[in-house]
């Protein structure tokens, strides 16, 4: 019933203690370096030398590997296979059957794309595993992100499971009045129609009430906000962030230099 949409796992670790912005910077730095580095093995190296070891530092290695395996391996595997066979070009033919053609060049290119996507998604997974959504939004609000924006992000994460539960209730109610929701694909699509009205219009009515509820708690107050959660931004955090920025810039430079 109460599905968790946030991946966050509460642990005591140096990675959890880092400022959310530092972790966000790290995530983006990993992605930018993986995609812009001129060296072929950079992305692969980042996985083994940075992302995977960091999951141990954050004490979330089990969850990290499990999510990567379950979610990411099939997707990147699929991309790898598709690209290997269908990318145009390539000289060194390894395999040919009907319209399938595999060359060592497309194989290399497909591996690079797949591993880059692997870096991107897996560093996000690591970020989400170790950063509480409230902490992230609190920190970004303090740095000038509009409160409304943060509210929309966090409340959406919370409200989706509630909407799912409500949709289930409406489906059950419609079925009890004889709506057929099983069978052929078109029939099931048709069965969605009576669901949309109550769910969408019901939600719109709720929006007004929720707006009143948060206004009643001073949401639009002009006073400077304060925060319940303490979020230290240490000199170490700043140092890490600037180092990451420099590393990304160096990668960009290397990319320009070597190409």
């Amino acid at each position, binding site marked *: 019933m109460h599905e968790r949409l946030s991946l966050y796992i509460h642990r005591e670790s140096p990675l959890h203690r880092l400022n959310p912005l530092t972790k966000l910077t790290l995530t983006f730095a990993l992605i930018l370096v993986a995609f812009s580095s001129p060296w072929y093995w950079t992305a692969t190296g980042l996985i083994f030398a940075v992302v995977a070891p960091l999951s141990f530092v954050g004490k979330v290695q089990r969850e990290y590997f499990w999510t990567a395996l379950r979610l990411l391996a099939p997707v990147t595997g699929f991309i790898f296979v598709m690209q290997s066979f269908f990318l145009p070009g390539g000289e060194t033919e390894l395999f040919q059957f009907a319209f399938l053609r595999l060359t060592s060049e497309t194989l290399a290119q497909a591996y690079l794309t797949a591993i880059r996507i692997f870096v991107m998604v897996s560093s996000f997974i690591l970020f989400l595993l170790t950063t509480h959504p409230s902490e992230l939004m609190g920190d970004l609000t303090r740095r000038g992100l509009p409160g409304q924006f943060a509210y929309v992000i*966090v*409340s959406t994460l919370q409200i989706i499971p509630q909407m799912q539960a409500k949709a289930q209730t409406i489906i059950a109610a419609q079925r009890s009045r004889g709506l057929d929701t099983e069978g052929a694909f078109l029939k099931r699509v048709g069965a969605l129609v009576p669901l949309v009205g109550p769910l969408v219009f019901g939600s719109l009515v709720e929006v007004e009430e929720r707006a009143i509820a948060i206004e*009643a*708690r*001073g949401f*639009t*107050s002009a*006073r400077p906000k*304060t925060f319940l959660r303490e979020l230290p931004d240490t000199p170490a955090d700043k140092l890490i962030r600037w180092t990451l920025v420099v590393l990304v810039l160096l990668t960009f430079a290397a990319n320009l230099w070597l190409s």
Partner: protein
Amino acid sequence: MALVTLKNVTYQYPLTETPVLKNVSLEVNEGEFVTVIGPNGAGKSTLCYAISGFIPHFFKGELSGSVKVAGVEVRDSNLSEWVANVGLAFQNPFNQISGAKYTVYEEVAFGLENLGIPREEMKNRVEETLAMTGIRHLAERSPYSLSGGQQQRVSLASILVMQPRVLVLDEPTSQLDPIGTREVFGVIREMSRRGMTVILVEHKVEWIAEFADRVVALHEGEILLEGAPGKVLTDPRLPDKHFGISRYTQAARAAAESGLWPAGRRLPVTLDEAVEGFSKSAQR
């Protein structure tokens, strides 16, 4: 001096033809517990919005007359300053959860973050309010995992923590089961006992009779009756105008028609009053 003063308040929602409140004047003193009753469409919720500043700051439409709290006119204030003085809680417990917070503790602190209360004071106030509303043990739970009665107490706590001078409650128990109702009324009564000014819209007549200082009967946007609970709630005009009437009053009225209720005795609202009256008439 009256803390809340409404003078000749008339209000019409945008895109409607007729006013919902017509020339309503009402004074509520500091520490007083006033209950508003009325049939559907009488303008009870609108009255709540008018006192809590949502009219005219959230709902547009035409407002005339004056609404003052602690001497300040609502038009001269803004909503977020107003809500720091006048707290509003309403029916649906689920829709009052902000959705921005993951635990009850954070949820209760939300209003204080918006008002810019320093962290230390915030923590003290949240602790105090959690204890007062009896939800200390729920502090680390998700607000969405709670029962209706618990959620409604979280909503009350979220408002009370802002330390308003007036608490406006729009049918806070109408979607709750008897246990939830009792829990919520327990909190409201405790707040009133501590000196909070309370304006409560409520249908559950037997509860009102127990602790309201004054009852205001609203009908088609006008104040029909106003006075002590025992007097207003047993008024013979109420049933014809579709007000909710206590079943003890109904029974005693029927008995009175057959001469079975002590002559000259006020009709009962609560079970205790009914038992007392009927045993008097049985003794004769």
